[in-house]
């Protein structure tokens, strides 16, 4: 095919054939204009019901809209990993195992999943999270490192490396809304598929080097590893009653950040 006639997906930058209605790699509609607010937030693409996404020798079909399901048809030799409580149903033929993880005790104390489950093809397996929201499909190009709020990841394909990063600073741990750790996903030499679940609607914005924005900590969903996070506290005094404090996460570029509009609100020191 002549590359000059290909259509580039505005969400994941993959090349698609000119007659494609949805991106082959991330499922984003190609015939719908981007929804970008004046402040620069781009809405995550609203995936059409029954859209198919391809990775390795496998496909992922997105079913439903309010609480969407990701149904994976795993090819022989392909595998995906996930937290076991997001599993909706599976074929009997899809083999299950657990991924060996380091730092089990630390993870358990930090409230992170102690084990990550692996499903191996051939076979079908489906995932959903029990809340209204959107699936965020992020094909990771080689070398990309992405930090994700704990428990927000739905599944990742085998070519994506999984680890976790400790959040630095006591204030960031106590008031940053992420706990002690964030999941880190790293694409090696091969592109892989990462699917997250965001509560409500999901928006993404690219921060320039040194550009900052202040977020409700519970709204944070993902960021490039290059984006730094620092909690800032603002006192709101009400005189006789003392008042309250508002903790906001200051995110500083360069890199992209993703937020969810139905956030987990973290109470401050009233």
């Amino acid at each position, binding site marked *: 095919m002549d590359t000059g006639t290909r259509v580039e997906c505005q969400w994941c930058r993959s090349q698609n054939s000119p007659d494609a209605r949805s991106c082959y790699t991330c499922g984003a509609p190609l015939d719908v204009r981007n929804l970008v607010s004046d402040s620069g937030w781009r809405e995550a693409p609203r995936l059409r019901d029954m859209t198919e996404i391809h990775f390795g020798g496998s496909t992922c079909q997105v079913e439903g809209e309010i609480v969407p399901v990701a149904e994976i048809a795993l090819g022989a030799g392909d595998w995906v990993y996930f937290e076991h409580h997001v599993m909706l149903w599976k074929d009997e033929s899809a083999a299950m195992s657990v991924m060996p993880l380091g730092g089990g005790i630390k993870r358990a104390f930090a409230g992170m999943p102690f084990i990550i489950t692996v499903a191996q093809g051939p076979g079908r397996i489906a995932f959903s999270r029990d809340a209204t929201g959107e699936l965020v499909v992020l094909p990771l190009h080689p070398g990309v490192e992405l930090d994700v709020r704990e428990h927000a990841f739905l599944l990742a394909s085998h070519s994506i490396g999984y680890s976790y990063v400790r959040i630095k600073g006591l204030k960031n741990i106590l008031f940053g809304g992420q706990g002690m750790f964030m999941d880190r996903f790293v694409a090696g030499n091969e592109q892989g598929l990462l699917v997250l679940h965001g509560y409500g*609607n999901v928006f993404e914005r690219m921060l320039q080097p040194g550009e900052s924005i202040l977020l409700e900590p519970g709204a944070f969903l993902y960021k490039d590893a290059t984006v730094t996070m620092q909690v800032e506290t603002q006192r709101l005094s009400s005189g006789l009653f003392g008042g*309250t404090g508002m903790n906001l996460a200051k995110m500083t570029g360069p890199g992209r950040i993703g937020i969810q509009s139905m956030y987990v609100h973290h109470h401050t020191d009233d």
Partner: protein
Amino acid sequence: MSGTYTCRWCRMSTDAPNLISCPTCGAPVDVRDRVSESGWYELPAIPDMARLQFGRSYCQIEGTYVPVADFNLSGEDGVYFTHHLLLWKDPAIAIAPMALRGGWSRLFAGLPLLMTQAYGQGHVAFSRDAPGELVPVPLQAGMSIDVREHIFMVATNQVRYDWFNTGVWFQTRDGDETETHYPLGMYMDRFSAPGAPGLLLLHAHGNAFIRQLAPGETLLVKPTALLFKDSTVQMHLHFEHPAGTWRSWRSWGERFVWLRLTGPGRVSVHSAYDKFEDPGNTLSGSSPATRWQWRG
């Protein structure tokens, strides 16, 4: 589109050409009204990225499941809100507390002790952590509406905030213990635009509907389903007992607690309301209320 357009949701008129959505409340202009046979008008879904103009600033509505209200403040305008609804802000936007009267009463009633103001030039965005709809209520000068507690999201500085005791309560007795219940909450928020038009944003859980009551016309609604009403609409309790249920000296048996709304004015309800727990014990007192016992 040419000529004057009057929005069917907020009733504001505009001469702006080629409208897609109402510039004041965001309701789309190119969809037909959805009105039930009983007269409820369904809030039309606000088009994604619609802009609502106020003063020299505007608010952009983003998303559909849990929409975000993204305010672009010009520097001359400001907004106030309950602080836990803040989603993100530019560093240039300053926030400060707004003092409220009756701190002790608000504290005991579970209402937010303070409102927070945002001002400066830049963007500040809000959302509530629940699926539903953003309900923009533009207030013309002189208008006043009453909003059930915890529904309010954000208002522009032209809107005056006050609160009042609902006066809607009943008491039940179980042995020596008397318990007071507030089906509508102890207090309601009142928003008015005394001098200039302003914009008020509410969050409806589920879908939002509005209806106009004629003078003297009445309607029974679940107290927790009420979203807002014009201040001219009166309200009191109504207890309804279905036929064929068991009653004793210590229990009224099955009992429905309704809020009777009496026009004139608008009333609005949302479809996903909280469950109100009525223990079913004998009533020992109430605010002005009516009762009805169905006979089998």
